[in-house]
């Protein structure tokens, strides 16, 4: 083995080796296009790998900052959405009541107070007589019936919620067309019972339940829910459980419906009563 050489000598040898190799490489690349391209390719590949790795490491350590930035972005976007929601509510407030060709007038409203915990729940809406709301108007949402307006002040309406044991709505089974009163089951915020369905009407679970349109408060064919199990009451009628589309525990925006021809209907009914007397 060679004698122990000082470290300096080894370093000098290594430096000379590198120097000579670099000189050779330079000569090689300057005298041959093929080798020049090869060195360039190797160099670029090495650089790409080095920078790629560096970037990956850098990205890893900047993840926390990126997460914080994303959280800020999310919050900013939520603010924008809230702004749009408020603008939509304001726009709704200024909207004139819409009169449909079916004799019903539609007034958008917002629930400002509601309850679901008792057996006699009620609602307070932000629209009153000044907005054209009258007593006995229906209240619906995009998913079904919500209640009936019971009293009206200048700016607010008091309504009996569908989640009230005293409220019945005339409803119809889709396949058989059988009609009966639909009432809250008193248990859940999306459960109801369709009563007094004659036994002769064929029925199958999964049928859709609609408003019948017989009550003059609600227009016909508003989807209310899906029929479930039935049980025979007193051997004469079926009582069918219904799962409502609308969960009343999550409700904010509703539409008040006024039947503009309700007085005309009432007048005919009164006249008929007088004739019978």
């Amino acid at each position, binding site marked *: 083995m060679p004698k122990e050489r000082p470290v300096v000598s080894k370093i000098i040898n290594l430096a000379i080796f590198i120097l*000579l190799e670099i*000189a050779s490489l330079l000569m090689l690349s300057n005298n041959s296009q093929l080798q020049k391209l090869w060195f360039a390719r190797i160099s670029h590949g090495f650089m790409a790998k080095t920078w790629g790795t560096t970037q990956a490491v850098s990205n890893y350590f900047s993840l926390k900052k990126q997460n914080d930035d994303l959280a800020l972005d999310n919050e900013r976007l939520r603010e924008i959405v809230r702004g749009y929601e408020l603008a939509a509510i304001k726009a709704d407030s200024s909207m004139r009541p819409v009169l449909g060709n079916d004799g019903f007038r539609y007034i958008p409203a917002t629930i400002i107070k509601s309850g679901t915990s008792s057996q006699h729940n009620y609602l307070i809406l932000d629209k009153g007589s000044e907005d054209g709301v009258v007593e006995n108007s229906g209240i619906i949402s995009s998913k079904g019936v919500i209640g009936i307006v019971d009293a009206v002040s200048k700016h607010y309406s008091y309504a009996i919620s569908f989640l009230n044991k005293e409220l019945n709505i005339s409803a119809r089974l889709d396949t058989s067309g059988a009609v009966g009163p639909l009432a809250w089951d008193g248990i859940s915020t999306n459960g109801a019972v369709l009563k007094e369905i004659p036994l002769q009407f064929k029925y199958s679970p999964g049928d859709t339940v609609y408003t019948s349109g017989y009550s003059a408060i609600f227009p016909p064919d508003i989807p209310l829910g899906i029929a479930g199990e039935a049980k025979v009451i007193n051997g004469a009628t079926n009582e069918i459980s219904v799962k409502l589309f609308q969960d009343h525990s999550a409700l904010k925006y509703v539409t008040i419906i006024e039947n503009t021809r309700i007085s005309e209907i009432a007048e005919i009914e009164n006249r008929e009563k007088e004739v019978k007397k």
Partner: protein
Amino acid sequence: MRKTFAFTYILMVIAQMILSNYFHFTPLAMLTILPALVLCIPTKVDTFWAMVIAFATGLAVDLFAEGTLGINALSLVPVAFLRKTLIGTIFGVEPFEQKENLSIKKYGFARMSFAIIIVTALFLAIYILADCAGTRPLWFLGTKLGLSLLVSYFVSIILVNLLSYDDRR
């Protein structure tokens, strides 16, 4: 002895130039004796001068033989750089302590063959990679390395005897 070695060395380099110019039987093989020449540089010559000699030798062959300028120098300098480490590993301390040249007679055919194969393989690996410049498939590189190593080894082992002429006398 030094003069004899230097003279033989120069003759061998000229022989390599001639071989490089005329030994073109197949693209799958090349013949080189330069690594064996560098290996046989006297042990008293340190690594620095061995690298300088190797660089000059490589350049001379590049200039006077067919080839790309720098390719022999590029491949031969690493052989000179690792020469002492390799000799120490294969032959032990004896060549350095007694300042002896490497020869088959002193160190045996097997060890000399092994040393020649190692330095020739190192040289050829660098040379072939740089020469093909990524344009050839791996099988081609492997075949060329194997065949060239075989041919170069046989020629080199004969020439090593010529370089250690003085010792034999």
